């Protein structure tokens, strides 16, 4: 198991290197250099000053050397400093925003699994029945619904008209006066709508996938054998078939991570959550290139880590993979 995990980890290194290459290329394909941008029409800035700035940022070196220096700093997690007024290290800025994003996405993944697996299994077991048909309609709507629009409608209904849930931020105004328990409840109340909105697309996709996976397993030979041996439907469906149908879900969850992280920009913007997605949005408006690049690299690294975790979880759940037996 450990050897398998280490192997997977090593095989991610080339991908990681590729990610840094693409990010670096993107940064340098951008028109204008950050140090020179906004200075060229400034009469107080002479050509020598611009040259000094370029030297300071290392922009006068050949590209491959610049990449090498950038990579060396990246390895020790030095993403440089923000170009905005506070000039703080990019890593600090990301790290203080990351927990909210992780909370929302981890809870969203949990919600997806909690809803999609039973929905998909029930649809497959009662195939073409009333439940299956209504779920199919809902799945199509779930695919097509713009998450931010659903979020707006829920804010309008639950937050504004009924006043049941808070519609922005992660804390109430007086959260510092609350007990720890109340703070937790308050936090969850604030996250309820964002988590639901992030999860909706995943729930639709995953339940569809679970349904077809389950249908495939039910057709397998060993299920027919079990049926011939006289097992009743309930134990066939929920003891034998479910275990095998659930396996591919692990991989799919890993694959859905980039979508969730990317979607956090819109969700955090909509609900004014102080997360990484919101920081990304603010950095784009402020043309804060170092922060934009830092978060882009971070998003890709999180995706890689998610895929790694999914692979390891799969190997743990299915011994065939880690012993290299073809499935």
């Amino acid at each position: 198991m450990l050897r398998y995990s280490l192997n997977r980890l090593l095989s991610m290194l080339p991908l990681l290197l590729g990610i840094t290459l693409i990010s670096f290329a993107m940064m340098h394909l951008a028109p204008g250099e950050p140090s020179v941008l906004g200075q060229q029409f400034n009469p107080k800035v002479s050509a020598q000053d611009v040259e000094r700035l370029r030297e300071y940022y290392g922009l006068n070196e050949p590209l491959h050397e610049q990449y090498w220096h950038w990579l060396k700093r990246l390895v020790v997690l030095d993403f440089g400093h923000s170009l905005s007024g506070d000039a703080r290290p990019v890593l600090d800025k990301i790290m203080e925003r990351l927990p909210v994003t992780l909370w929302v996405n981890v809870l969203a993944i949990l919600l997806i699994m909690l809803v999609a697996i039973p929905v998909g299994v029930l649809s497959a077991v009662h195939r073409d029945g009333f439940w299956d048909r209504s779920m199919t309609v809902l799945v199509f709507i779930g695919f097509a619904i713009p998450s931010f629009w659903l979020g707006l409608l829920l804010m309008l209904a639950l937050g504004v008209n009924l006043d049941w849930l808070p519609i922005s931020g992660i804390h109430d105004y007086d959260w510092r006066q609350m007990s720890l328990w109340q703070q937790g409840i308050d936090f969850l109340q604030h996250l309820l709508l964002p988590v639901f909105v992030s999860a909706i697309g995943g729930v639709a996709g995953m339940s569809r996938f679970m349904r077809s996976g389950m249908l495939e397993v039910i057709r397998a030979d060993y299920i027919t054998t079990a049926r011939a041996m006289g097992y009743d439907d309930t134990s066939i469906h929920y003891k034998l078939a479910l275990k095998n149908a659930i396996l591919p879900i692990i991989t799919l969850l890993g694959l859905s991570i980039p979508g969730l992280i990317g979607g956090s920009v819109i969700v955090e913007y909509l609900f004014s959550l102080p997360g990484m997605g919101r920081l990304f949005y603010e950095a784009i408006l402020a043309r804060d290139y170092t922060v934009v690049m830092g978060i882009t690299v971070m998003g890709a690294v999180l995706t890689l880590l998610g895929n790694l975790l999914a692979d390891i979880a799969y190997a743990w759940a299915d011994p065939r993979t880690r012993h290299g037996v073809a499935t």
Partner: protein
Amino acid sequence: MRAMFRQQPLFTVGLFIVIGVIVLAVFAPWLAPYDPTHVNVRTILLSPSWAHWCGTDTLGRDVFSRMLYGARVSLSVGLVAVGISMTMGIVFGAVAGFYGGRIDALLMRATDMVLCFPTFFLILAVIAFLEPSVWNIMIVIGLTSWMGIARLVRAEFLSLKQREYILAAQSLGVSPLRMIWAYMLPNAMGPILVSAVLGVAGAVLVESGLSFLGLGVQPPDPSWGNILTDGKDNIQIAWWLSFYPGIAILITVLGYNLLGEGLRDIFDPRLRS
């Protein structure tokens, strides 16, 4: 024809929605009751009525007219973006699948690398470096969504390569380009068309998301996404600004998804469950 419609309800409903939206978009200038960019201080934030079916926005513009013109933006972004991603995906996938070996390995590793990035981050990062405009959005969405098609075309080509008629053509000395273009691509067209149609749905969603963030179509040009931004800011007083554009996005995306799924069933009856 009628028999096919009855057998393929998904496809039929999808087709009608898609054609309907295209007609509305094309004839928007004749159908729109008002000028979509005409500012009128006397009609600010009116709720829906017979005069203004979907109400008016914060500048007194008619929301229904803006939505008709918004359909043009959404559809053209969807179609052009998918055109770009199709071209890239087909070229990459065809070359990788046809030549195999090292070229295949190299192209597929590159595809894996791009797939590591959350697509929406990639799009936003590029938009940050360029200026948000309709053209840039089309190009950026196209350039960040070719990976799925590339993998699909590659898989199709790998399996087609084993067919006898391809081996026969090869032994007759047909040139590689002609082989790809005239012998293999037509046989892979079914799945490609399906993912192109589904791709339009995805691109419409991404465009509306970008415009909602204010990083897509720039006002005063109307887009379903940027009407919703107005809706967010006035959510307590003007529900219609949030409601109608979302319905338009939902129906359009639903239409393309149904059409795509319907086409999949028609091309590959084995998958029909």
